[in-house]
């Protein structure tokens, strides 16, 4: 059982909006570990689109991706990469 955290900055133009949240939750869904995202004292379930969207993380916001479980480190690296790739969003 391990717990991994990584801080990343939301870089895409539109921030963590619905599409981005959907992409994040879908990817998180594929891991056994618990995933959450934190921002300024708020915490969202990383596998829930609704929950992620309510963080209202706009471009430039720093968020912390937290995973707890067997595959936590894989999950965190994949999820932070997704954020860094701007959720595959076209510019």
């Amino acid at each position: 059982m391990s717990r991994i955290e990584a801080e990343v900055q939301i870089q895409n133009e539109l921030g963590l909006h619905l599409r981005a949240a959907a992409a994040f939750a879908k990817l998180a869904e594929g891991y056994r570990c618990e995933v959450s995202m934190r921002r300024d004292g708020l915490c969202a379930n990383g596998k829930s689109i609704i929950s992620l969207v309510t963080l209202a993380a706009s471009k430039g916001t720093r968020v912390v991706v937290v995973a707890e479980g067997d595959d936590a480190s894989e999950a965190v690296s994949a999820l932070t990469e997704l954020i860094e790739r701007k959720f595959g969003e076209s510019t």
Partner: protein
Amino acid sequence: MKLARIAERRGIPASPGIAIGPAFVLRRERLVIPEYRISADQVNAEVKRLERAFRDTRERLEAIREGMKDTGLVADIFDAQFLFLKDPTLLEHASRNIRSECLNAEWALQLELRRLEMLFESMSDAYIRERSSDVAFVVRRVLQCLMGREPEGLRNAPIGVIVVAEDLSTAELAQLTKGHVLAVVTEGGSRTSHVTIVARSLEIPAVVGLPDLVQSIADGTTLIVDGHAGCLIDDAEDATIAEFEKRRLYIEALDRQLLRYADLPAETRDGVRIRTLANVEQPLEIPHALEYGAEGIGLYRTEFLFMNRVDLPDEDEQVDAYMEILGAVAPYSAVIRTLDLGGDKLPIGIRGGDEPNPALGLRGVRMSMSRPAIFRVQLRALLRASVAGNLKILLPMVASSSEVDFARQVLSEVREDLERAGEPVASRVELGIMVETPAAALIADILAPRVDFISIGTNDLLQYTLAVDRGNEHVSYLYEPLHPANLRLIRSVCQAGRRAGIEVGMCGEMAGDPLHCWILTALGVGQLSMAPFSIPLLKKILRETSLSEARVLLEEVLRLPSAAEIRAHVEEHMLRRFPAEFEGMLPSR
């Protein structure tokens, strides 16, 4: 023949046909949510009850979706709703409300819905705010399941009614069947909304975009729905009902009689061949279109692929969609238009900021230039699909040559990439433009040599040329396809096309109106793309026409000073020449 216009409401003609029948008003029942506390030892059972309701709701919706699979329809409309139904937050938070407050499941879920609605409401993003209705829909279904209520719907509707609703959910649309429901009228909806597409493919007359319906229409009121003209008449006098009944029978008879023209070419007596093509929104419509005598698809809009969803369709999904179209219509060609979405309809990933005036904003090829990645994916998908048939690519909203050059450049880069990767691509894929801005019409001579074909999009061209928003009741009477300004623009585009040796066609409503086909033929429009059901009549009229007499009419018309005089002249002339065809048609204008 003039009809008294009483209590006539104008909406958007969504699906053609005339229906007369009693109103069945779909009123959303207000769910009274039971609220009570449970004892601590009941908590686990209550949570289980909630979980079961979520599971049952999911299974039910999945069954409905499964049932719609064969029709190839709307299955993906459900996706947003499924996303929320599966989302752990809803169930988790509602369960927490049960555990910590000892609330009953309905109350607990309702509280969570309120919380989410407030949250969504506070978001600045309009798209997210709208999704709040998807969450509400899902929660409502779960609540109904918890309370043992049947979701309201069309199943209870008696046979032979006209459904009146604010809007129809996907689950309700799935219950629509021809014969059971005579027609559909809704407050919401547009030309491309789900109601429209489903009604059209089921051949159920429909008018959408009619405000205040549910409040003002009583159950059982006799309604007249004219899906051709987009109007609804309630509380009609017997004389009006009789008139429309006559017209309905007349149109039906005419349609049957006209079908024998479907397989004949649209060729004038002096040998001018016009190609009649179909505008379609969904692959499902293609068999109909071919039955009605379409010689290809003149406009397939790709917006539908991109709308009402959370994410963008990826390349493979697009390839499948385009191949389906191309395969279904082959060996005829299909003109597929690249994405033309107004800022208000985009999926979240590509939405820009709000624009004060979207009609003059970032749409069509401008959007493609500002978001080249989306454009590139679409072009890649189109080229990959091109091997399935005969593809022509159409660019919307062109206003300058640089836009065409940009698109050509991207298209050739994409082709090189694909060929280098060994992907098969059709050797020739034509690239054409919509002429729907006055700018494009005025520089048609500059644009024509750069493209393989031109399609005049009259709906927008007219709005921009006449500076008339046809949705604005104060000025919509000024919207007139036969306006001399429009005729001059069309003429000069046709001339430019002839000089460059390329085809000039037309899509947009003007092309499908039999009243206009002489004028358009004389102006030199060689392809007319329209709603499939219009094709047989147009063929009949063109076959009984000669180019020389059409030219005489055009000459006369071009000398007239105003749109009203031109219309009167054309109407009179066509009515005289084709009394049987136009007698029943003109009153609706």
